[in-house]
């Protein structure tokens, strides 16, 4: 709020004084505010890094210097499970520091986010193609039904989905999957033949694997913007729909599919509520988000292990930071795109 007030005051004062001088001062003040906001945006990450590079005993001194007196990599080593007992004692300042299996949680998150991204992008892309290009009865109505999914708060469907997971366990138990024609499909890959759905990868992945209303909507908007003439040329050359989709539409739409894939990857990487419902605290499938939450819950209220918490926090943010460094520009563009539409 004060930001805006300062700006308006600066602008108002520029009205009274000489216009060009006032305008220059106004621009200077505005730049200063903009830079301050940029600093505020990144400072917590820098501070987290500074904390993670400090031992817990040193943190207790309460120093607010931007650099630690004695930088250490021990906390990162500890979170990655590569520190020996002496190093654990030195960096955590206690005998039995809280356990956080970062690498396992990282592996789980990668499995979940990758599976969701591949399935959702491909299948939503196919649906978007149908809605953008194919003529069939009830197309607009079906699309509206899909879109209505955007209006529903996730928790409203997560509760019935949790119950569905319990039902599915019952059906899976009956063994119909293996006894039927479907038995030749290697379901083990997705632990499908495992009876439980709670506390399994398939339980966490499946609800987002086939589509989300947002993905279909987003890609349909892109497909509508693609010039039809190349597709029509391919049809004239006798290509079928599948061929056109694979060899013409996908290559043309590749940048947009990649943009959606990045957004989906980041969204599934960050998802917290559904794993909280369905992972059942199983460390073998829990992603980083819920593991970190549990890690914080288990910390003692007095003198928690801040150095390790910040090291783990930074490491879990790292892949998103990397995606951001490579694709940041594309993400900025996509937000402006979806904002205008």
């Amino acid at each position: 709020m004060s930001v805006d007030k300062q700006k308006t005051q600066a602008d108002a004062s520029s009205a009274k004084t000489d216009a060009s001088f006032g305008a220059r001062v106004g621009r200077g003040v505005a730049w200063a505010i903009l830079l301050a906001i940029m600093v505020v945006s990144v400072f917590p990450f820098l501070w987290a890094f500074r904390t993670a590079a400090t031992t817990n005993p040193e943190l207790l001194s309460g120093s607010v210097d931007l650099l630690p007196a004695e930088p250490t990599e021990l906390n990162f080593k500890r979170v990655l499970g590569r520190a020996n007992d002496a190093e654990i004692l030195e960096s955590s300042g206690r005998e039995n520091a809280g356990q956080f299996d970062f690498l396992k949680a990282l592996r789980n998150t990668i499995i979940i986010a990758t599976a969701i991204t591949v399935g959702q992008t491909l299948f939503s892309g196919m649906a978007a193609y149908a809605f953008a290009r194919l003529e069939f009865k009830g197309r607009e109505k079906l699309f509206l039904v899909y879109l209505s999914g955007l209006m529903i708060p996730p928790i409203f469907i997560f509760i019935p989905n949790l119950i569905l997971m319990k039902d599915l366990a019952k059906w899976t138990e009956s063994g119909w999957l293996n006894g039927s024609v479907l038995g030749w499909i290697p379901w083990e890959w997705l632990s499908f033949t495992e009876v439980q759905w709670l506390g399994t990868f398939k339980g966490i992945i499946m609800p987002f694997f086939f589509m989300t209303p947002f993905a279909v909507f987003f890609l349909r908007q892109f497909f509508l913007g693609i010039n039809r003439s190349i597709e029509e040329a391919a049809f004239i050359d006798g290509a079928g729909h599948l061929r056109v989709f694979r060899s013409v539409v996908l290559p043309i739409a590749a940048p947009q599919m990649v943009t959606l894939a990045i957004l989906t990857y980041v969204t599934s990487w960050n998802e917290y509520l559904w794993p909280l419902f369905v992972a059942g605290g199983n460390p073998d499938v829990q992603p980083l988000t819920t593991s970190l939450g549990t890690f914080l819950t288990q910390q003692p209220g007095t003198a928690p292990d801040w150095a390790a918490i910040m090291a783990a926090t930074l490491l879990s943010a790292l892949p998103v930071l990397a995606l951001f460094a490579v694709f940041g520009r594309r993400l900025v563009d996509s937000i402006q795109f979806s904002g205008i539409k």
Partner: protein
Amino acid sequence: MTKKSGRSGSQNIQGGWKVAFWFLLPSLIGFVVFFLYPSLRGLYLAFTDWNLLGNKGEFIGFDNFERMRDDSQLSNSLWVTLKYVVINIGSQTIISIGIAVMMDRLTKSQFVRSIMLLPWLMPNVVVALLWVWMLDKNLGVVNRMLDWIGIDPINFFTSTSWVIPTVAAVNTWKFMGYTALLIFAGLQTIPKSLYEAGAIDGATEFQMFRRITLPLLRPVLALVLVITIVGSMQVFDVINVATGGFNGQAGGPANASRVVYLYIYQTAVTFNEPGYAAAISLLLVAILMVVTFLQLKLLRAGESDLA
């Protein structure tokens, strides 16, 4: 060749369901099983006393809805949510408009825009952890700085009066860059000639902001407000992590941060009453729809003053 070209021009128009079916099949499976069926089942659940342990429940009519009337926890959670939304949306919108206008008038730099997008990409859990540490009472850097200027340490996440403003500020930090980008995109639709004309007439930046930018931004602003308010009413992650840490009771201290989304989650999972939770989420759906409808009406979102 002639035979093919005869129908090919309109082949993408023909084909009908026979072709479309295969393109739609996977997404249909996902939509029906994990979106449509749960939605309908959620409606039904609201009229049952479902139990997660036996995974079954009896139809109990409107009991859950009658119970909502006298539930002081529910009215508390709605009140807490309202407080949160007002503080969060108020600060976030004003700051974002400021950022968007400054970006528009000062720089086209993609770097500036992407830096401010960074917090938005972070997992909410990471955001919560970063700020629980930054705002720690004893060692947190913010309280150390307050100490320099002579302000006593503040229990940001652990005092009943501070917790909601704190979470609102943290989420403002997270979403201001993203919201600013949406508004920025809207600013690009305003013809530059209007500002040139304003400058010739000797208008100041502030006058141009009030007379040109704000009125023409209204349709975009209305949509942005709908998106952000609907999102803000569903705040959960940061509160659950930040107030549930260190063996704390999520929603605390003393229910001061138990927003409606958290209350629904706890009712369903912690208290094992998914039927009652479904009834409360129906109330939430209704509130969200009314809010969206009213906003679009009030702000006349579809119309632009450009015409």
